[in-house]
């Protein structure tokens, strides 16, 4: 469903380029700065693997994009009526658990202590929804034929499901949050179109998709970011999304079921 609005946007852009001589230029803006904020990124999946938590800080707009790691944090996860697992810092800002398999339907509470301040987030792992297959379709618009990957899966009926497609092109993660909800296709065989551009897909590209089920909070966090950049429709008034961590931390904690599939573009 996102796609239709994406297309509306593509179309508007096309109209603008057909009718107008629109142009882009890099401009120099004096932007304000703020105190660094804590950013926590934590995904826990239903595979028996070591899980990673990344803790960083925000930087000024004109600084380098490189992550500013936050070391010496105390990171732990507690399974509802289950064990608590403590993470250890492996490289600066990256904290790793022991091998552990999380279970769909269970509630997980993550706590992170940095400089005496505790940040807590909870996430209930949604039911597992495996990828059935990936397929390839083509879409022509205004003289251009685009190759599109479809992610096929069966959405469980009667409950709200949210998905995060982590997309890798030739083993490089695509910088975009492909998030979906089942609001328009609850209980259906879903063929979710993944639009990939900058650059467009070409024959021989290897596309890998990790399908993560996510809870409503994580969906909203990522969806809000896509809305600001206009990926999900017309750009909205920018605002900071609400994290499921408390005490003003940014980022998210998601307990997610996980499957992966890949295909080579024909």
């Amino acid at each position, binding site marked *: 469903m996102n796609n239709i609005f994406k297309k509306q946007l593509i179309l508007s852009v096309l109209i603008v380029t057909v009718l107008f001589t629109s142009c882009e230029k890099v401009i120099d803006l004096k932007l304000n700065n703020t105190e660094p904020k804590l950013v926590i990124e934590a995904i826990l999946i239903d595979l028996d693997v070591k899980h990673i938590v990344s803790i960083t800080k925000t930087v000024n707009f004109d600084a380098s994009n490189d992550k500013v790691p936050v070391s010496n944090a105390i990171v732990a996860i507690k399974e509802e009526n289950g064990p608590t697992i403590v993470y250890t810092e492996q490289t600066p800002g990256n904290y790793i658990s022991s091998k552990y398999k999380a279970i769909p339907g269970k509630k997980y509470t993550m706590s992170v202590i940095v400089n005496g301040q505790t940040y807590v987030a909870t996430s209930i792992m949604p039911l597992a929804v495996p990828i059935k297959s990936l397929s390839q379709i083509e879409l022509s618009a205004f003289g251009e034929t685009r190759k599109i990957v479809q992610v096929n899966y069966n959405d469980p009926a009667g409950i709200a499901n949210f998905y995060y497609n982590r997309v890798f092109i030739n083993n490089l993660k695509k910088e975009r949050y492909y998030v979906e909800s089942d609001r328009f296709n609850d209980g*259906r065989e*879903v063929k979710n179109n993944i639009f990939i551009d900058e650059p467009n897909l070409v024959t021989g590209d290897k596309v890998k998709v990790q399908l993560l089920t996510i809870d409503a909070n994580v969906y909203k966090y990522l969806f809000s970011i896509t809305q600001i950049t206009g990926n999900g429709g017309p750009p909205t008034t*920018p605002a900071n999304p609400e994290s499921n961590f408390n005490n003003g931390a940014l980022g998210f904690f998601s307990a997610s079921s996980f499957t992966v599939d890949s295909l080579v573009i024909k």
Partner: protein
Amino acid sequence: MINIFAVKRLAVLVLIYFISLSFLYAQKNYTINGVVKNSATSETLIGASVKISGVSQLGTSTNSYGFYSISLPEGQYKFEVSYVGYVTLIKEINISANVKQDFSLEESNNLNEVVITNIRRNDNVIKAQMGVEKLNIKDIQNIPVLFGEKDILKTLQLLPGIKSAGEGNSGFYVRGGSTDQNLILLDEAPVYNASHLLGFFSTFNSDAIKDVTVYKGGMPAQYGGRLSSVLDIRMNDGNKKETTFEGGIGLISSRLKIEGPFVKDKSSFMVSGRRTYADAFLALAPDTSLRGNTLYFYDLNAKANYQLDEKNTVYLSGYFGRDKLGLNETFGFNWGNATGTLRWNHLFSNKLFSNTSLIVSKYDYTIENLLSGSEFKVNSSISDFNLKQDFNIALNNKHELKFGFDALHHTIAPGQISSPSTSSVNEIKIETRKGVELAAYFSDQYNLSDKIKLVYGLRLSSFSLLGGGNFKTFDVDGNQSSSTFYKSSEIVKTYINLEPRFSASFQLDDTKSLKASYTRNVQNLHLMSNSTATSPTDLYIMNSLNTKPELADQFSLGYFNNFNDNDYEFSAETYYKPMQNQIEYRNGTDLRGNQNVEADLIYGKGRAYGIELFFKKKYGKFNGWIGYTLSKTERQFSQINNNTWFAARQDRPHDISVVGIYKPGKRWIFSSTFVYSSGNAVTFPIGKYNLDGQTVFYYGERNANRTPDFHRLDVSATLEGKPNKKFKSSWNFGICNLYNRKNPFSIDFKDNPDNTSQTQAVQTSLFGIIPSVTWNFKF
């Protein structure tokens, strides 16, 4: 909410007051009435001035149907009838009985008046009404516009206090109001989306338009329903004398108008159409995949009238317009308005004029996804049925009364998704909402003395939300707190409001006056958009259990001064406008097919204040105007910026427009416009972070930043064909954005593609310098 008994008592008092008025002035008076019309076409003239020479106090102007009525004691009078662009008619009439007198004015060939006109040379000074402007349609074609598509909405935006909602956007902001706070009426029918092609053109084909009046403040009591402005647009009735053709061929579109009599001097018709043909070029494209795409819009205006007898005239008018966009076999998107108005003018007596209107209006859009496997169609619409009754009485030479009522039924179908069984998309229907607005009003234009004139009135308006479905309430955090089922037509909730309207002018001398006004306006329909641009898919909602009517009180003061025998006009108007029950979306709201959109709404306050300076040269070879607005528009919501006042999207502190028109001789007309405004209030990042491989920006306070300033110079030249021929033609050449200014349309923040460890701000500009040429004809 007000006590219903208080309202009744008030109504009785008002009635007694008017009965006593007519006794007070019950001297021996006769009435002269009739219509003022164009001598060549018999087209009635709206707002033409009918005054008694030498007596500033005695006079009136024609109403929306060209009708006037004046009561006078017995005697010999010299009538002066004038209208901009027409030769003033002076006629001596002896009044010793009631007289029916029509006036026919001759068009002046020597059009030295400027586009924005005042009815009478010093009307702007004398009349109590303030915050009003009229556009003269005939001269709009001289003002340069994008692609040479003459556009009344674009021309309006050159006036102080009226600002464009953004480059290439037909939406406009009036005195700090948002785009949905403008009541746009086409032959009395509300037009819900007045733009084409995602906002680059307006839906009003100026060929079909006779008269445009915009009220920025001091709205007369017969108008209601929107907070910030009234844009009253009237279509041509059609030539009653002979059949004529008129049209134009431009870069983007072509237009054709036919008008003529059914029965000479009794009945006429007008049909006017316009269609763009960007897609015609696509069809010629060498690349076959380009050919299956559609991209066009059209407008069709039609009107007919019939004068049954001296006392009865009926009018039927309609507008149909649609935009169609499509990518071959994958996607379709179309939207449009349709309106229809049936009117009956009736003269009960030579003093009492009545108009009854039946109006329908509909706006809808359809989105179709044809991609195999996920086919679906989304339909959404808003439709109105409206009955209006208006009365005009020229009670005596001091009082002119207007009163009437208005019943308006709204149906909003927010969205329905339908899909074939092979599609993975489910069918969804969001509950349709129905509501009724009822209003009654009166107003009195009262000439208190030679120096003091008043217009005062009152509008009593109500809105009832009607049942048929589940109605929910939500707490401040957006959690559902109750849900109640109401049967069809059951009243869910009623809101009643009193809207006082008051304007006064105090004339200092013949050329100077002070004016003041206070108006309250109520708005029961709200357009919801969380994007930074307007979109055809923006959603209308009604008042509900959660959403209360928006209210605005506007106080304004003005100084008006004409110089040099009314050749130059200067005005300064200030306003202060607090607004209640303003609406915004929560952050991160997903609007698509949202069943509980009200859960995502937050409510707050607004305020707007400013000063508008206007200096105009009205006559001569060179004319034009300079407008400057200094203003501030703010909003306050407890959920945004910690409940502090912040700059609204419409806030632009400085706004300047300069219009110049030069007519050196009979055939050439040169014109130029320059606009400058402060940048828009926007939200920029104050930091960034990396989250799962993507750079995410951390934003500062809402609207705490500004885009770069906006300015642009447009020029045009019109060459009229040789005069005195039956076949008239003209060429219009224009250049939009002469010095190729790259104004910001949007500013995006993204990774630097050449150095992905850095981010950059990228500004998109819609267009640079754009030339245009249009050929117009008439025969």
